[in-house]
């Protein structure tokens, strides 16, 4: 099942990169189609972040004492200020570990 997923995803990813270069598509894409490609990564990655921050637990919203959400918000601020991947990940992770392991003692 996992192998099947990896191979199918690999094949589709290759085709996405190859089809325009293969010359199959000769027609120019419309501006709105080009624009939508710009938005897709943002639109797909955001729900994954929301899910991983555990805001929805057992079909209800969970904000208070949600250390993942708090650390996520801290990392958003760090990303806005520094624009640096490593700083965002390390400060976000450090604040999460601090809140979940030390505050909870």
């Amino acid at each position, binding site marked *: 099942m*996992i192998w099947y997923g990896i191979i199918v995803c690999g094949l589709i*990813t290759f085709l996405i990169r*190859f089809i325009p270069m293969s010359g199959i598509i000769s027609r120019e894409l419309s501006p709105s189609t080009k624009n939508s*490609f710009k938005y897709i990564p*943002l639109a797909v*990655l*955001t*729900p994954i972040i929301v899910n991983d921050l555990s805001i929805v637990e057992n079909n209800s919203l969970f904000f208070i004492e949600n250390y993942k959400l708090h650390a996520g918000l801290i*990392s958003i601020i760090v990303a806005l200020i520094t624009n640096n991947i490593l700083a965002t990940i390390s400060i976000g992770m450090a604040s999460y570990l601090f809140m979940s392991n030390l505050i909870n003692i």
Partner: protein
Amino acid sequence: MKKIEVFKQGILEELPLQIGVFPFGIIYGIMAVESGLTPIQAFLMSSIIFGGASQIAFVQLISSATPLGVIVTTVSAINSRHFLYSISMMEYLKNLSLKWRIVLSYLLTDEAYAVSIRRFINYPSTSFLHFHLLGTGITLFLSWQISTLIGVLLGGDLPQFLDLQFIIPLTFIAIIVPMIKSISTFFVVIASAFSSLILKSLDINFWIVISGMIGVVIGLTSSKLDKKR
């Protein structure tokens, strides 16, 4: 300019970007093993898919028992931007043989594209331009494979209390925040975030895909408003 010189230039111009790519590859390797993939699956995914953010999304979705259809759709959506890269490269590479176009398509990732397209635009008359993309692509490929391998080897030995799964949303935050450069991109994030909260609370299948589609529609609508300003 000789082929080898153009190739070397591609490598040299790509090297500084590895400061960001290498830790990302290690994180992916660790996550993949932590999420239950075998070391072989985790390592080979880096050469079969060869796309950082989409691989991390794959691993995250596998660990939360997401249906395969959703995983494939999500990975394809994340990598769909490469379609545009390929379109813009086509102008410079259309006279190459099919064999070359296959190899260069495989190597066409964010970082290789970002470096090579600048070269293509600024020096379009350089001979053997495709060797530049070959240089940037191979540099990134090797760096991604080595860093993945390091992550895979580290993966199983890390203590549980670290809860390393949490690196995944942090990585995505680090990727998407710099992409929010306009009102429309901001609206995309807000719309897909809120719709995913609502759809997931309602236990609706394919909530990632549906909220992604809502985000894109809102983005397109607000970009039209942007232009009117």
